[in-house]
C-alpha cells in the first residue's frame, strides 16, 4: 500500500504541478487539462468531471483522465457527490470503494479501491457537477488532497458556470430567434395550422422537441377539447407517429392542455408513462419523457393549447415559460384573425348567395359611379350580362335610368328611398321599375346601391284587379239601378196601378232582383272555388247518366226555345264531384239553348280520348269568333256585352265551368266547327281504365 506522501514526494512539487496547470489553462477554459493536471498532481489513477445539465438531473461527462478511458456514467456516483455532500465538502473513501458501491460501473471500470469526490456548485450554491478522483490502492494519507481538489474545483466551477451561462444564453438566443421567426409567420400565414406547424418546427428545433399537438375548443361541444393538429420534428413522417400503447398513452392525454388553459399559464411536466415515438427521420424510436404545454390566448380567453413533447426535461424553464406565453398570445391573435376571416368569408358567401338568388336587380356602384356589382337578377331584368356591365359607368350602361338614379343620389345623398322609375330592357321594351336606392360608406370608400324590381306583372295584376272590381261594381249596380229606379216610381205612385207601366215596373224589379241574386251567387261561388274553400267530393260516377239527367233538366227550356236536344252517350266512369259536373253541364247546355236559333239542334255526346272522357256540347248558333275563344272563359267576358242582359247571364258561368273542370284535372275549350255554330267540350279523367290516378294528380 503506498501513501500519498510517499508517491508525491514533497508537497511543494505537487503544488508546482497544480500552479503550472492552472497557469497553462488560464483563460483557455480547458477542463480536460485541469482534470488531467489534477490527476497527475494527486497521482490518481483516474479522475472524472461530471456536469449536471441545467438543474434537470441529467449527468454528462465533461472531462476524464486518462483521456482514453471513456467511462460509463453512473448516477450513483453523481448522486453520491451532489446529493449526499454539502457544497465544499469532500467525500473520501479510503478503501473498499467497490465493495461499498458494487453497482457503480465507473468505480468498477477504473478498479477503484479508494476515491475522493466533491460536489461543484455555482454562486448560489446550486449543483453544477461532480469531481471524482479514484485510486486503485487504498489511501493511507491525504495531505494536500483536499486543498488541491478544492483549488482546482474552484477553477472548474467557474468554468462550468461559464459554460452553463453560455449554454443558457445560446438556448435563450435560439428561443428568441424562434419567437421572432414565429412572429413573422404570424403576420404572413393565412391559417392557424400553418402557424402552428411552423411554430412547432421553429420552437421545436430550439427546444429539441420531437412532437407537438394543437388542441382547440370544440365549437360543437362547449368545454371539450378537440385535437386539430399533430406534428413531429420530422413532419414528413407525421402520419407514422404512433404510440406503443395508444389507448393508455400519455401522449394523447389532454389533461395538461386543459390545465394550462384553465390556469392560462404554461406548464411543463415529466410524462409518467413514457412512450416511444418513431418521429425521427432515421426511424429511431425516441423516448419522450417530458412535455411543455401553453395556452392559446385570444384576448383573455384561452381557446386552445399547444403541447411540445421532449426527449428530456426542458432547459431554461423560466425563459421557456415566458417564451411560450408569448407564443400562445401570438397564436391567439392568429386564431382570432382566422376566425374573423372565416366569419367574413361566411358573411361574404351569405351575401353573395342572397344577392345572386334574388330575382330583383341589385346594382352597386363604386365612388366613381361605375358598376361594381351586377347580379343575376339584373341580368334577367335588363338582359345585359354582368361581364358586359361591371366596370361601366352607370350613366352609360343604363342611359336614361342611370342619369335619373344619379340625380336621386346627388339630390339626397345618404337617404334611402323607394321610387318608381322607367327603364329599358336590352331588347328595347320598357320596364316599370320599383327602385330602392341606398348609400353607404366603408372607411374612405363610398358606395351606392340600387335594388330594382320589375313591376310589370304587378301593374298588370293591379290593372286586372281594377278592371275586375269596376266590372263587378258595374254588374252589381246595373240591376240595383233598375230596381231602385222602378221602386222609386212605384213608391211615388206616379204610375196607375194595373196600368202597363205599373206592370212593367213590377216585372223589371222582379227580373233584376233575380239577376242580382244570381250574380251574387255566382260571384261567391267563383271566389269559393278560386280560394279553394269549396272542396270537391270526388267519387266514381257514370258520366253518361249525368249527361242524360242534365239534358232532361234543360229539355223544357229547349222546347220553349224551339231547340231540339239530342244526347248520344255510352257508359263511361269518371272520378268527379257529381254536383259540380252537373253544374258545368247545365251551364253549357243553357248557353247552347240561349244562343241557338229556333228549329236548330243541340247535340250532346261523350267520347273517350285515351285516359280522359270528353263531353261535347255542339250547337248551331252564331259561333264564337276566334279572337274570343280564349278569353270567353274569363270572368265577365262577353262576346257581345249585350248578351248578358238579353239572356240574363251573369258573365261568370263559363269562368266557373273552367274552375270546376280545372280542379278535376281536366280542360275546357271551345271550337268552331266548319259548318257553323260552336262546340264546347271538357274532359274528365276516366276510372274505368287500368291507368291509376297518381296521388295529387287531381287539383284538390
Amino acid at each position, binding site marked *: 500500500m503506498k501513501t500519498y506522501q510517499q508517491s508525491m514526494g514533497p508537497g511543494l512539487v505537487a503544488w508546482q504541478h497544480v500552479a503550472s496547470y492552472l497557469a497553462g489553462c488560464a483563460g483557455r477554459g480547458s477542463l480536460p487539462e485541469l482534470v488531467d493536471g489534477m490527476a497527475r498532481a494527486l497521482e490518481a489513477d483516474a479522475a472524472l468531471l461530471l456536469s449536471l445539465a441545467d438543474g434537470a438531473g441529467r449527468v454528462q461527462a465533461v472531462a476524464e483522465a486518462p483521456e482514453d478511458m471513456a467511462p460509463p456514467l453512473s448516477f450513483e456516483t453523481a448522486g453520491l457527490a451532489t446529493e449526499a455532500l454539502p457544497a465544499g465538502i469532500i467525500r473520501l473513501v479510503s478503501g473498499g470503494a467497490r465493495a461499498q458501491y458494487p453497482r457503480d460501473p465507473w468505480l468498477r471500470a477504473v478498479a477503484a479501491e479508494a476515491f475522493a469526490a466533491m460536489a461543484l456548485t455555482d454562486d448560489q450554491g446550486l449543483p453544477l457537477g461532480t469531481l471524482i478522483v479514484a485510486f486503485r490502492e487504498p489511501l493511507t494519507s491525504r495531505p494536500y488532497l483536499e486543498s488541491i481538489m478544492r483549488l482546482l474545483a474552484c477553477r472548474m466551477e467557474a468554468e462550468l458556470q461559464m459554460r452553463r451561462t453560455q449554454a443558457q444564453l445560446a438556448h435563450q438566443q435560439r428561443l428568441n430567434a424562434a419567437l421572432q421567426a414565429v412572429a413573422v409567420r404570424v403576420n404572413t400565414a393565412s391559417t392557424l395550422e400553418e402557424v402552428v406547424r411552423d411554430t412547432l418546427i421553429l420552437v421545436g428545433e430550439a427546444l429539441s422537441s420531437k412532437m407537438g399537438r394543437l388542441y382547440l375548443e370544440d365549437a360543437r361541444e362547449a368545454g371539450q377539447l378537440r385535437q386539430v393538429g399533430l406534428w413531429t420534428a420530422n413532419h414528413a413522417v407525421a402520419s407514422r407517429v404512433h404510440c406503443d400503447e395508444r389507448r393508455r398513452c400519455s401522449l394523447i392525454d389532454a389533461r395538461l392542455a386543459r390545465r394550462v388553459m384553465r390556469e392560462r399559464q404554461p406548464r411543463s411536466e415529466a410524462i409518467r408513462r413514457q412512450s416511444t415515438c418513431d418521429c425521427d427521420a432515421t426511424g429511431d424510436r425516441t423516448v419522450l419523457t417530458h412535455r411543455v404545454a401553453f395556452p392559446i390566448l385570444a384576448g383573455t380567453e384561452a381557446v386552445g393549447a399547444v403541447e411540445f413533447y421532449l426527449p428530456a426535461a426542458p432547459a431554461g424553464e423560466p425563459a421557456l415559460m415566458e417564451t411560450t406565453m408569448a407564443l400562445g398570445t401570438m397564436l391567439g391573435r392568429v386564431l382570432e384573425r382566422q376566425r374573423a376571416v372565416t366569419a367574413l368569408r361566411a358573411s361574404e358567401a351569405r351575401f353573395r348567395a342572397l344577392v345572386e338568388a334574388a330575382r330583383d336587380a341589385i346594382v352597386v356602384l363604386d365612388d366613381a359611379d361605375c358598376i361594381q356589382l351586377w347580379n343575376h337578377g339584373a341580368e334577367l331584368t335588363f338582359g345585359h350580362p354582368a361581364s358586359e356591365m361591371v366596370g361601366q359607368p352607370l350613366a352609360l350602361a343604363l342611359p336614361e335610368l342611370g342619369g335619373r338614379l344619379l340625380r336621386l343620389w346627388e339630390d339626397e345623398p345618404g337617404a334611402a328611398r323607394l321610387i318608381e322609375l322607367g327603364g329599358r330592357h336590352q331588347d328595347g321594351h320598357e320596364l316599370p321599375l320599383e327602385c330602392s336606392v341606398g348609400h353607404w360608406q366603408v372607411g374612405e370608400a363610398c358606395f351606392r346601391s340600387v335594388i330594382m324590381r320589375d313591376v310589370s306583372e304587378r301593374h298588370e295584376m293591379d290593372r286586372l284587379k281594377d278592371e275586375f272590381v269596376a266590372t263587378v261594381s258595374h254588374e252589381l249596380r246595373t240591376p240595383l239601378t233598375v230596381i231602385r229606379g222602378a221602386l222609386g216610381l212605384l213608391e211615388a205612385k206616379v204610375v196607375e196601378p194595373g196600368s202597363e207601366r205599373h206592370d212593367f215596373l213590377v216585372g223589371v224589379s222582379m227580373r233584376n232582383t233575380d239577376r242580382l241574386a244570381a250574380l251574387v251567387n255566382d260571384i261567391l261561388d267563383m271566389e269559393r272555388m278560386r280560394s279553394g274553400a269549396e272542396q270537391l267530393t270526388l267519387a266514381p260516377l257514370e258520366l253518361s247518366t249525368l249527361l242524360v239527367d242534365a239534358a232532361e233538366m234543360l229539355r223544357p227550356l229547349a222546347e220553349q226555345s224551339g231547340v231540339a236536344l239530342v244526347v248520344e252517350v255510352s257508359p263511361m266512369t269518371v272520378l268527379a264531384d257529381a254536383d259540380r259536373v252537373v253544374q258545368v253541364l247545365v251551364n253549357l247546355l243553357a248557353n247552347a239553348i240561349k244562343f241557338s236559333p229556333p228549329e236548330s239542334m243541340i247535340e250532346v255526346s261523350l267520347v273517350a280520348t285515351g285516359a280522359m272522357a270528353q263531353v261535347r256540347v255542339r250547337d248551331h248558333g252564331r259561333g264564337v269568333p276566334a279572337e274570343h275563344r280564349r278569353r270567353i272563359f274569363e270572368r265577365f267576358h262577353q262576346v257581345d*256585352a249585350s248578351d248578358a242582359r238579353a239572356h240574363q247571364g251573369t258573365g261568370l258561368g263559363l269562368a266557373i265551368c273552367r274552375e270546376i273542370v280545372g280542379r278535376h284535372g281536366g280542360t275546357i275549350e271551345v271550337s268552331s266547327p266548319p259548318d257553323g255554330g260552336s262546340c264546347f267540350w271538357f274532359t274528365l279523367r276516366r276510372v274505368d281504365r287500368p291507368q291509376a290516378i297518381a296521388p295529387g294528380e287531381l287539383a284538390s
Partner: protein
Amino acid sequence: MSRHVLLVDDAEDILEVARLSLELTTPWRITTLRRGAEVLERCAADPPDLVIMDVMMPELDGPSTLARLRQDPRTQGVPVVFLTARVHAADRARYQALGALGVIPKPFSALELAELICAQLGW
C-alpha cells in the same frame, strides 16, 4: 219647345226605367239608344239638347263616344252628362276633361233624376 234628350245605355232595363222616369217628371222628348255609334249618327243628323250616356258600353264606350262627338264640328257643342257607377274622383276628372257637363251616379233616384240633370246643366 220641348227639349230633345238622347238616353243611352246598353242595359235595356235601365234605359226603360230612366226613360219612364224622365217622361213622367219632365216634358222632354226622350229617345233611347244602346250603342255609342248610334249616338254619333243621331247627333250628327239631329243634334239633341242633351245626351245622357252610360260609361261602360260595348264596342264604343261612353268616354270614347264623347271624344268623337267633340271632334266632329257638327256635334262638338252637344251637352253630355254621364250616367254611371264609375264615379271616383279620378273618373269624374277624366269625364270633365273630355268635356262632360256632369255625372249622375248609379243607382239613381228615379224621381230626382231630372232634378239632378237640371241642376248640373243650369236648366
